[in-house]
């Protein structure tokens, strides 16, 4: 084995770009390990773990690019050329436009800019966000690893100026019909959303679109906004903004269950807005929501269904459990079960969206009493080893431990591909349940990147005289950049049963495992 490295001083690239390049280089047959990273302390640890750290690399800074490769024969020059080609391709995605070196110079260049989107490493992100707010710019802060004290300081500054401070850890927003970061393209309409959960917000947007409604504005707050330390500052400001927006007639709030006093504070602000509203504190206090005269939703799909009814001036009812008739669903379930062997009994959920996984856990727990997970609802069901499923399990593959040194599973399917094959080794598995999230930010062909592995897994079961049922939901619209119909076709072609919402996919999978 030959190990070679190259250091390019003062060549900064963002982590997602570098991870995607690394992945392409590692896929070569003649490469054992490839690491293309900036010289941060964390990356030096990573290089050390694969035996590629040396004194020269130790001296690099976070501004220096390191290309280090372990290979069977010396093809280093060829590999470096390929890395450079890939980097220049990725860099040219934003065109040949002027790219100023600092936020100050960008503001000078575009003084009428009104939104700053920040996805820098967490250690630097808060300072840049503060600078943006001081310059009267609204901020979407995608980065995580920002402290809660910094979050509080940023949001206090934003509120004092009447500015949006979406995040930290805000993945989804749509302002003036422009999807930002991870976001679907949906119809324009009169429903405004304030969301503290990324894929939860995406699911509600997509379902609103599916039911014929549309969105006016979608404001993200970041997952910690409703914690006591932050006190719902951005959700409150978001509600007030939608209250004053003549194009918004219905407001939808979505968040994991907040602390009681924060929920009350938010609902009071919502009451003052005078607008119709649906609230989904996923698995939270519906009584409190009703006490304030608002509609509570029992799933993300249900929140959308009721919001669209309100937006059309209709009486909101619960969303049907399935779009298809009960007879049709029961027949599909029976067909799936008839092909299985008696020892197949477990559901395995492999999710890329955290809130979609959380919704699955809650729906499943209501009927079955519990399900194991890396983000379990109770300690009793927390997996001992998060990489090994046990009995009924649903995994959030976007959780930190699965994303060290790798892009999020919504960008890169590698982790999920490996997990699909791993589950296929377990002959007690009956159903694989998955979400496929489309929209800006996501993989350009998520269904295509999963289809071959699904076929392989199904074949492994068939070779054992068994049958693997795969149930999926494509969270996307026909306006998304991936081509919705093609994504659906690719999954159908792999033998996947598709449901039109996350909640329905979970219910279908539960029907299959019930009584097995």
């Amino acid at each position, binding site marked *: 084995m030959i190990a070679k490295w190259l250091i390019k001083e*003062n060549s*900064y690239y*963002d982590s*997602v*770009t570098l991870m995607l390049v690394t992945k392409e280089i590692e896929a070569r047959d003649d490469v054992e390990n490839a690491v293309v990273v900036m010289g941060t302390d964390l990356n030096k640890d990573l290089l050390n773990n694969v035996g590629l750290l040396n004194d020269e690399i130790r001296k690099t*800074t*976070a*501004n220096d690019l390191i290309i280090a490769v372990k290979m069977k024969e010396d093809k280093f020059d060829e590999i470096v050329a390929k890395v450079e080609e890939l980097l220049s391709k*990725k*860099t040219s*995605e*934003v*065109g040949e*436009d002027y*790219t*100023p*070196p*600092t*936020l100050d*110079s*960008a*503001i000078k*260049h*575009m003084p009428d*800019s*009104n*939104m*700053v*989107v*920040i*996805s*820098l*490493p967490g*250690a*630097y*992100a808060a300072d*840049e966000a503060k600078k*943006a707010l001081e310059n*009267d710019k*609204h901020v979407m802060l*995608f*980065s995580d690893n920002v402290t809660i004290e910094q979050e509080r300081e940023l949001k206090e500054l934003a509120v004092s*100026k*009447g*500015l*949006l401070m979406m995040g930290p850890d805000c993945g989804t927003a749509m*302002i*003036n019909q*422009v*999807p*930002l*970061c991870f976001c679907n393209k949906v119809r324009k309409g009169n429903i405004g959303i304030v969301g503290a959960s990324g894929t939860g917000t995406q699911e509600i947007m997509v379902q609103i679109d599916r039911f014929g409604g549309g969105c006016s504005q979608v404001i993200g707050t970041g997952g910690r906004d409703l914690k006591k330390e932050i006190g719902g500052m951005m959700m409150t*400001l978001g509600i007030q*903004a939608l209250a*004053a*927006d003549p*194009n918004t007639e219905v407001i939808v709030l979505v968040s994991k269950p907040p602390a009681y006093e924060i929920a009350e504070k938010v609902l009071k602000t919502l009451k003052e807005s005078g607008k119709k509203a649906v609230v989904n504190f996923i698995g939270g206090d519906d009584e409190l929501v009703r006490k304030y005269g608002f509609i509570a939703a029992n799933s993300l799909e249900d929140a959308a269904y009721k919001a669209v009814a309100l937006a059309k001036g209709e009486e909101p009812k619960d969303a049907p459990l399935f779009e298809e008739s009960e007879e049709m669903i029961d027949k599909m379930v029976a067909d799936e079960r008839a092909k299985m062997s008696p020892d197949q009994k477990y559901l395995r959920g492999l999710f890329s969206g955290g809130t979609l996984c959380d919704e699955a856990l809650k729906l499943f727990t209501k009927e079955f009493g519990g399900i194991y997970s890396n983000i379990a609802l109770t300690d009793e069901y927390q997996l001992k080893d998060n990489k090994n499923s046990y009995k009924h399990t649903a995994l959030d593959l976007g959780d930190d431990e699965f994303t060290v040194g790798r892009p999020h599973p919504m960008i890169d399917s590698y982790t999920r591909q490996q997990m699909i094959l791993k589950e296929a080794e377990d002959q007690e598995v009956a159903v694989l349940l998955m979400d496929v999230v489309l929209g*800006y*930010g996501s993989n350009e062909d998520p269904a295509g990147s999963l289809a071959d592995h699904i076929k392989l897994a199904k074949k492994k079961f068939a070779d054992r005289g068994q049958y693997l049922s795969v149930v999926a939901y494509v969270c996307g619209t026909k306006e998304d*950049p991936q081509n919705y119909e093609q994504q659906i076709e690719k999954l159908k072609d792999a033998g996947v049963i598709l449901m039109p919402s996350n909640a329905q996919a979970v219910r279908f999978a539960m029907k299959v495992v019930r009584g097995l």
Partner: protein
Amino acid sequence: MKVNELFKQELKVINMGLRSFAADIKSQNVEVIHVDWRPVAGGNKKLASMLSKLKGK
């Protein structure tokens, strides 16, 4: 509130960090500037903090 002024304006974005976010915004014919950001003082936090004090910030 400034947010409501934003709702009436054309969105104009400055992007810092992942280039793909800027590319997505640009693909929708929305004006966007990508900042060619790099860590202050090569990521040396002590040096960066001294520099920022020198600038009086």
